[in-house]
């Protein structure tokens, strides 16, 4: 399948729904090992994304992803704003002028997004950040030659759950050192919502 503008719009709608539903949960995860604003910030940012993209017309996915990026960058704040903003900006750049995205293009865009996140956050896999979800997913995507929505969702979920046993090395949770073990990384959980929403979009369109 190919992802087009309608799919990306649907993706953002679904991601926003999941984030709004889990706003309090995300904040409680962040209160345990961070500064307690992740749910609030993500809910505000994604609501703004929906407001922005539903009021505009898009002829290609690149412009749409750029608007998503700029809105997240200016409305989320904290560390998540630059990280998610950078991820969607890199996707937009990787898919310049594409009106739809085939599987290899999508994998390429994910790869660029991950590199952007790692550079911005100076983080590597295994440091209890959203890199753990993004990099694990990319590894899985590269093993296949087409979308597998079920496996995609499962991989994201397992990667998200695996952050529970890790000691944080980056972000505010790193101050807790070994006391961060036993808690999920809030950024990995919000990344899981974003990717499970994409999985739902793919599932419904095949």
């Amino acid at each position, binding site marked *: 399948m190919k992802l087009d503008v309608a799919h990306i719009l649907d993706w953002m709608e679904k991601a926003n729904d999941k984030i709004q539903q889990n706003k309090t949960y995300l*904040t409680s995860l962040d*209160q345990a090992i*961070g*500064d*307690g*604003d992740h749910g*609030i*910030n993500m809910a505000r940012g994604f609501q703004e994304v929906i407001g922005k993209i539903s009021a505009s017309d898009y002829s290609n996915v690149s412009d749409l992803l750029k608007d998503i990026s700029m809105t997240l*960058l*200016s*409305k*989320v*704040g*904290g*560390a*998540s*704003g*630059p*990280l998610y903003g950078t991820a969607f900006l890199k996707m937009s750049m990787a898919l310049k002028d594409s009106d739809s995205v085939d599987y290899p293009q999508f994998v390429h865009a994910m790869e660029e997004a991950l590199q952007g996140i790692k550079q*911005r*956050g100076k983080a590597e896999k295994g440091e209890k950040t959203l890199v753990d979800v993004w990099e694990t997913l990319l590894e899985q995507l590269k093993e296949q030659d087409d979308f597998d929505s079920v496996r995609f969702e499962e991989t994201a979920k397992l990667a998200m759950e695996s952050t529970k046993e890790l000691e944080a*090395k*980056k*972000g*505010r949770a*790193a*101050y*807790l*050192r070994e*006391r961060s073990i036993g808690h999920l990384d809030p950024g990995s959980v919000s990344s899981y919502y974003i990717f499970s929403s994409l999985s739902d979009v793919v599932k419904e369109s095949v």
Partner: protein
Amino acid sequence: MKKIINDPNSAVQDMLDGFVAAYPNDVKRLPGTTVIARKDAPVTNKVGIVSGGGSGHEPAHAGYVGEGMLDAAVAGEVFTSPTPDQVFEGIKAVDNGAGVLLVIKNYTGDIMNFEMAAELAEAEGINVKQVVVNDDVAVEDSSFTTGRRGIAGTVFVHKIAGAKAAQGASLEEVQAVAEKTIQNVRSIGMALTPCIVPAAGTPSFELKENEMEIGIGIHGEPGIERKEITTADEIAVELTEKVIADLGLKSGEEVAVMVNGLGGTPEMELFIVNKKVNQLLSDKGITIYDTFVGEYMTSLEMAGCSVTLLRLDQELKTLLDAESKAPAFRR
């Protein structure tokens, strides 16, 4: 939650407007932004200094905007870094060609947002340098982690860098003296009660009636140790000894002292702490050049305090003493 607000979502906006209404001759709010700038910004032939961060630390950071200190302060949501577009607006508003120094507290979000803003500014031909304040000795200093947090010592960096810029120094010179201040300032905090972020509505952590936390961060991040509350003297000694040890202060050296309230502690208690800090430093032969007791870097309504020591030489003393018209740090 019991707070004097209209709506959690408008708390920062309302606060900024109220701040400008209090100091209309000193500061202005850039329309459509969360930037508070000097009324006369951009100042001719002067390096601009921009700081900022999450809200909830008042009087930081807008209170330090004024002649002799910051040119602009960028406010984020409560305990949330301001976004790159807002910081970029602040940079543009204070630059007049002499360049802009960003004073950033060492938090992952602040660094990422300010760095993105610096990239945007550089793309427009503005010369931007940055310093990162990391004075909190409660956090282990390690290159493998995020490193130490920036807390109350940041106010001294604002003061000294601001004074240097007011003298007409170059961007490199202002950055160098800010770095020197950062090398010589250390702090540590403690809390008796948590605080409530308006949009969250619940406390970010819990402390039992008889408990205190040593090494708390200014967003309620956990400290080194949670234990039974003790006397002001013992608290003062524990905090001050940690700072002295980390700075390696020796008899004969001179310091500025800051005993900072976190928002919910009466000045009476801060002065009680300061009495012991003063005595301890004197006993060690460390000369107190100047003392600042009050609320400089708060954490909403958290009860607690922090102790900051700044090691001084002649240059830093002169810059600390220089005139400042910032509402929260008049000299």
